[in-house]
């Protein structure tokens, strides 16, 4: 019974590289999320953004960033040596 070899050799390495890309993009994504308040109109008046909603948005974005970082932390900090065994191709 022969298993069809995977097209990608070293699948793990590939995954890990993309994971690093995610880790690099994360602060950029965070900056975009946190710069959204720049669009809110300041000052008093009817159109002004309420601080209560603003706080919920900012803390929400914050939590998303924390969760994303937590999800990445484990795989990223795994020692490099584990990835040397390539794919099963």
């Amino acid at each position, binding site marked *: 019974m022969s298993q069809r070899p995977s097209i990608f050799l070293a699948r793990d390495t590939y995954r890990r590289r993309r994971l690093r890309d995610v880790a690099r993009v994360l602060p950029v994504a965070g900056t975009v999320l946190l710069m959204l308040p720049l669009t809110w109109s300041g000052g*008093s008046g009817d159109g002004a953004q309420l601080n209560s909603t603003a706080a919920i948005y900012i803390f929400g974005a914050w939590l998303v960033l924390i969760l994303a970082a937590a999800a990445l932390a484990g795989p990223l900090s795994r020692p490099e040596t584990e990835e040397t065994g390539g794919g099963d191709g």
Partner: protein
Amino acid sequence: MLSFNLLVGIALSYVAILFVVAFLAERRAERGRDGWLRSPLIYTLSLSVYCTGWTFYGAVGYAARSGLEYLVIYLGPTLILVGWWALLRKLVRVGRTQRITSIADLISSRFGKSNTLGVIVTVIAVVATTPYIALQLQSVTLSVSVFAAQGWGEAELQATAFWVAVGLALFTILFGTRNLDVNERHHGVVMAIALEAVVKLFALLAVGVFVVWQVADGPADVLARIDASSQAEWQIGPGRWAGLIFLSAAAVLCLPRMFHVMVVENSDERHLATASWAFPLYLGAMSLFVLPIAVIGLDVMPEGSNPDLFVLTLPLHLGAEGLAFFSFLGGLSSATSMVIVASIALSIMVSNHIVMPIWLSSTGDRASMSGDVRRIVILSRRVSIAVVLSLGWLYFQLSGARESLASIGLISFAGSAQILPPLLAGLFWRGATRIGAGAGLGIGFAIWVYTLFLPGSGLGLPESLMTDGPAGIGWLRPQALFGIEGMDPVLHTVLWSMLFNTLAVFAGSVLSFPSPLERLQGAQVVDVFAHSDSPKGWGQGTAEAEDLLVMAQRILGSAQAHRLFEGQARLQGTAGYLPEVTPDFLHRLERELAGSVGAATAHAMIGQIQGGTSVSVEDLIAVADETAQMREYSSRLEAKSAELTLTAQKLREANEKLTALSIQKDGFLSQISHELRTPMTSIRAFSELLRDGGVPADERARFASIIQDEAVRLTRLLDDLLDLSVLENGQVTLNIAGGSLVDLIDRAMAATERQTTGLRIIRDRDAEAGCLLETDLDRLSQVFINLISNAAKYCDAAVPELRIEVNGRTIDVIDNGSGIPKPSRRIIFEKFSRLSDHAAAGGAGLGLAICREIMEKLGGSIDYLPGREGAAFRVVLPEAQALAAE
């Protein structure tokens, strides 16, 4: 109300607990059981020195004044931590491989171990941190005054600040300078601030929970109250929001205390991964209840109370004295942990970059050999701590407690941020140089001092300068540079200082030329992940291992130094305790020393003994232009490989030719022996018959003529061989005579008449007649004889034809056979070549070889002419003959 004495008593016991924790941690670490002390959790908690008394008390005041703007202070660090993979990881790796002791050390080390830069960064750090330390003293003093009996005056406040400063100095000296650790790690201090981190977090959360669920009716009510308060609406200008997030992100990298806990005290890179989410979580928790406390404080507290102290006064006002007290401990923790770490970080910088270099130069050439360096380093650290704290206290005294907490904090942030451009340039750009970094730091620092520190710090500038500018130059007004008015002062400073700082770093770097050591260090820092091993900065020198050991002992301590030297000796396979002084060893020793006294000082000390660095060209090439070098190397390889391919190709061709020739020669030998043998055999046989007699006369005549014919054949063969050998050896005399081609070919045809019976020869006699010759006619006719007889022998057409075409000085001789196969064309002019094996030819394969030799001797040429229907040869008559033909 809690009695003031009880408060002091409990505060002191809290401090005592901190002492005990620090002490136990130190002892555990000394016994080598520091596994637990070095966990990611402790690391994350130690990062909380970011949250100072300013955060603890000031954030609520900030929120009461400007709504959600206080969040910017936490969002910047969140982005930096979340993006640890791109930046912090590199920073920590550089810190570890280069044994960095402080941010000044990093800048100095990266830019060629320049102590000048170390001094500049140290000065910036001290100036920027001093108000911040004053701020902590202020927050502790204010919080104490809340509990004090009414009517505390300025004098009592000052006294409190003084004793707090003294106490902090004592604690810091005790645990921050107990030993001179090679890695500059302070287990006791880190443990204590981790504990303080927990206390301040829970204190603030407790107040928050109290406010949200006791005072208000849960989150929904709090949100409603926010909507109803004076801070209901988003009022933050876009510039301030973005600018302050940038500023706090810069601060988390550049504040000396943050650099210390994040990089210097880091024992494992992977701790960053945990901190990347845990520290933002900590910050989030610290800031979660700030706005509710502020809003409800504004609601509940009497008009005119200081919002900076709501965390303390709100529970107190509502009768929750225990909570108020817990909150006081939280505030105390925040303030003390900041002061402790900041003064340790500053004392390292001051002693490594200011005191040690002065001491080294003042004690003369052999400074590193005399006196106990360890004692001097530790003493200078202790003095520096005391000086830093007294500066803070002095500042507090001078400025008084009139600033709101937040503004001082931002001023300090903006000062530290001046280190950011050189830091980032140094980390990511090899081209950044010492000159550039120095220029950037200088300009940025000057702008900061002029536009923000002096006007905003309470030290004051004359009023006329603020409104009219220096000497009435309006566009130089401190808070309206270039006439741009109405900008927020902090933003104004951040914008201009960062702009000019970055520009100066760039321009300075581009215009200057780095020293070899700078380039080495630059390559090592920028490509820290590529260079696992470092190049050696030291050449073979004059240092004696013993001198080095004496010096190392004075810095590292006797046991540690001996261990290092012995280990190195073992590594080198040398017997005894002293290793050979190799560049390798010097480099390692310098690293070890750098862990204690900083890169620049360690470099200078070894330099004193060793007699100067030598960065060899090879070292530089090895790292400085690795990519360019690789490219060149690979192109050189490519060229070489192409050359080799070509050579191999030629060799293969030569080999093929040789093989073919060898086969021909074998064939020729057997052929020639056959050719010689056949006539010889007949000659022998018939001569024997004649000798034995009894042969009729007519038979005898026939036999004799056979013998004669065979002898002629032998002679012809030998003549051919002789001809060729004569031609080849160049011993030819040419009999130049005039004649016409037509006669010459006629003669050749006549000579070959017997062989060419079946061959039709097509000629253009007119053209031939027009071709007059002035050459050795006999030899030239030999060429045509050979060509014609070859055609007669080898043309395989049913009706063989030979065409002789004359065209000026070229004569083509073409038959209508199948021609000569391509692979053979190269060898037909070689000696002994005969393409078909059949002996019918009756020649030895010398004909064409002779033709070529003759033509060469006559100054012309003969070649095979490809692309014609049959075998075609082109005879080119030499120039002289051609001229004669015209």
